[in-house]
């Protein structure tokens, strides 16, 4: 185990984005919502463009269009004007006001501005909720942006009424394919859930005419309000939901399970175990079958997966989940990289290492690193597979090592937003892909 922390000033090829895109993502998982970014026009256009390339769906994001004047006199007039226009023209159920490095540095108090907007315009009643989210781009990454957005939504919208018997699920920045897989597992368990939030239909919509004004699906603002009355909260990605889960815990005394992403056998079991603990519902035969079908395939593939050296990069929870699954398959995760600058990540990794008694192979844990770091480590100690998002393709090409694509973004390929990697079935899909990639390579 070698923990590598950043010493360079320059970042080269970062596999990370800024907070606003995480908050935009969370907002778009709410039915009839308009994310309103408080910043320069690039702050909406850039994330939109990237998300369009990944999801292949329309992504509507509003912007307050801050210019020179706003940097001197503040952006309050822009924000109020933008709220007026969006409410009048779009009639959304929710507007999320998302800050940027620009509006945070100029020091706009978005909460105060929204408060005075409401006071000045009593005509806009509560039929459009407005949630304010602080997402300074110079703190954390897109991961924190998503986390902050969910936290803001439950803090500002949840309302204690009657118990609803449901559980809250905070998916994190998982693809529609993965969210649908969670829905499938819970349906099999007979458990009802409130998803905070749910992009599985809003960013994955069927084509039917006429186009609905807002995409169908998504979590309703009523459901977000009702999240106060659930049995408890489970995060699929600890780092993309823990703050929201803790708010609900502190406010309403409901349990918060900050789960590990359910990839592979043990993590999926743990997730379903948490669901059982929260609801009392047992795992049905169908899911037991799914588990053992996965195990059957893992055993069948053991000749091909055992000892395979991998490099894994991406968001912290995805990397932890993939690393655990790699260990379950007898692979050697030699280089793991996340952009999270948190010593806890290395501790979590080391705990995994201990769990599986990995042999004394030196594992590089690159904390808060970039893809240049990863490429250097791969040059020193080559691997057989790289697992990560599309930005891994350059290392893959340079070093002649195949890339198994997971997560977000996959801006240069087709259909990855529909793929799944979580749960027993998602893990099986991922296993198939990895094994076939290894076999393809053996053929060469």
């Amino acid at each position, binding site marked *: 185990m070698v923990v590598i922390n950043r010493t360079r*000033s320059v970042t080269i090829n*970062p596999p990370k984005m800024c907070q606003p895109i995480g908050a935009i993502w969370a907002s778009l998982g709410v039915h009839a919502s308009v994310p309103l970014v408080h910043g320069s026009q*690039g702050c909406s256009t*850039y994330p939109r463009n990237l998300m369009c390339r990944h999801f292949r769906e*329309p992504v509507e994001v509003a912007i307050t269009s801050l210019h020179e004047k706003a940097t001197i006199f503040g952006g309050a007039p*822009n924000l109020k004007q933008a709220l007026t226009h969006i409410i009048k023209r779009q009639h959304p159920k929710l507007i999320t006001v998302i800050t940027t490095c620009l509006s945070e540095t100029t020091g706009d108090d978005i909460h105060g501005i929204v408060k005075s907007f409401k006071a000045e315009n009593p005509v806009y009643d509560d039929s459009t909720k407005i949630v304010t989210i602080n997402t300074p781009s*110079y703190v954390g990454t897109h991961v924190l942006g998503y986390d902050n957005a969910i936290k803001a939504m439950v803090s500002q919208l949840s309302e204690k009424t009657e118990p609803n018997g449901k559980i809250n699920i905070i998916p994190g920045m998982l693809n529609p394919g993965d969210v649908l897989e969670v829905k499938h597992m819970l349906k099999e368990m007979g458990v009802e859930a409130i998803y905070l939030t749910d992009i599985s239909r809003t960013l994955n919509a069927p084509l039917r*005419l006429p*186009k609905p004004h807002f995409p169908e699906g998504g979590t309703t603002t009523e459901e977000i309000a009702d999240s106060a009355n659930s049995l408890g909260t489970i995060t699929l990605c600890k780092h993309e939901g823990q703050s929201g889960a803790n708010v609900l815990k502190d406010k309403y005394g409901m349990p918060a399970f900050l789960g590990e992403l359910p990839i592979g056998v043990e993590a999926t079991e743990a997730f379903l175990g948490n669901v059982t603990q929260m609801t009392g519902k047992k795992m049905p035969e169908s899911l037991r079958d799914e588990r053992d079908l996965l195990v059957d395939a893992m055993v069948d593939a053991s000749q091909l997966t055992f000892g395979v050296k991998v490099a894994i990069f991406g968001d912290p929870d995805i990397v932890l989940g993939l690393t655990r699954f790699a260990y379950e398959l007898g692979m050697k995760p030699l280089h793991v990289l996340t952009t999270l600058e948190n010593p806890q990540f290395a501790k979590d990794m080391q705990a995994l290492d201990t769990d599986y008694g990995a042999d004394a192979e030196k594992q590089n844990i690159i904390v808060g690193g970039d893809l240049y770091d990863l490429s250097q480590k791969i040059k020193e100690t080559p691997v057989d597979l790289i697992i990560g998002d599309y930005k891994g393709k350059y290392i893959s090409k340079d070093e002649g090592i195949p890339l198994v694509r997971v997560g977000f973004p996959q801006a240069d390929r087709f259909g990855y937003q529909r793929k799944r990697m979580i749960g027993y079935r998602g893990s099986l899909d991922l296993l198939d892909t990895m094994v076939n990639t290894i076999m393809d390579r053996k053929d060469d």
Partner: protein
Amino acid sequence: MPFVLPECDKDVPERKKHIYLKDEKDEFAIPACNIATTPGDLTERGCTYAGCRGVVGGPVKDVIQLQHGPIGCCYYPWAARPHVATGTNFHLANAFSTDLRESNIVFGGEKKLYNSIVEASEAFPNAQGVFVYATCVAGLIGDDITAVAKRASKAIGKPVVAFNCPGFRGVSQSLGHHVGNQVLFDTIVGTEELEEKTPYDINLIGEYNIKGDDWLIVPLLESIGLRVVCTFTGDASIHDIAKMHAAKLNVIRCARSAKYIAEMMQEKYGTPFMEVDLYGITQTANDLRKVAQYFGLEEKAEEVITKELAEIKEELDFYREKLKGKKVMIYQGGPRSWHWPETMAELGVDVVVVATTFGHEDDYEKIVKRVKNGTLVIDNPNAPELEEAMLKYKPDLFISGTKEKYLSHKYGVPFLNGHTYESSGGYMVFKGLVRFARDMYKSLYSPSWKFVRTQETAAEAQ
């Protein structure tokens, strides 16, 4: 009334002056343009940084592209635009950032910037220079990136170019183009001598080699007997830009994003310039004649035009037949919206709506002149306006960019990406026109469209 307010804009009356319905009686009325966007109107515009880093600076293939600011603005433009290059993908495969954090916002980022330039140059010793781009925060906290660039340039012994292009400046990407032109002109142009000059040296200005457009244009110009010293900035090396002043003529394709540098070169070096379209048959042929005439190469130009047209005739005729009478809606950044009306007319396609993201008055003058009566011309359209235009004008095809593609499909309107193209090659000059027409045909005639059903039918289906 030449100016119209769409239904969706009834609460944004200031949009009316941006939306012009061409009327012969009003030949010279043009929409209001190049002014600030109404906050919250769901604009499609980007920012000054995007115009500078993404459009003008980004295609330069052998320099370190270093963004000074928080991480997002490094990530989003990284390889987002396919301005490909010969012999390298360095500029697309790598993106650099100072990744400014909270402490840098408080105490300034100059030291981090200096160290980043030096470290990046050490990591990539073959890079021929460093382009530094300021984003919003760098501008706000007052980092003197020009001074840092000067010091760092001494330390690494290579040019370090500082672009002061924070996103909050100006009203759109357009100012970023201008900054990019100005800075490259001031710092790089004229710093190296062209060794072997010929009497036929030209620069191709405002051409970015999207999916290889340049690789269609340059051979064509060479076949006439011209030599392209530098394409500004598609497939360009920083050394090409340094020698631009040696050219005898500047030929401008995208006049919106790069006419500035041609004007500055005319003033300083006396280099004349001419504007060209290089899309479509007639425009391309006339452009070639015009450029050839300047050098006395008319005969060669005619020969080349005849040969090229013969090569594409059969295939193009097939597509023309297929495209005849189709209605198209065009929404591009600027010039392509005036390059294409005549190109479409040649293909027998009827242009019903034309819009631009950041056009200026001169762009709209050209558009208004080139479209037929009854065409709707929109400046800086927002999403609801595009939706309304699709429903009202019922185009058979919408040609725009990535952000509009999936919206168009949800409205049941076939789409073609005119910004970054759908295919693996360019759409310009004669050979590109065939590909352009072929791709339009593919979008229009895809049998998949016939399976699209209504919400109602879907609900009733057993």
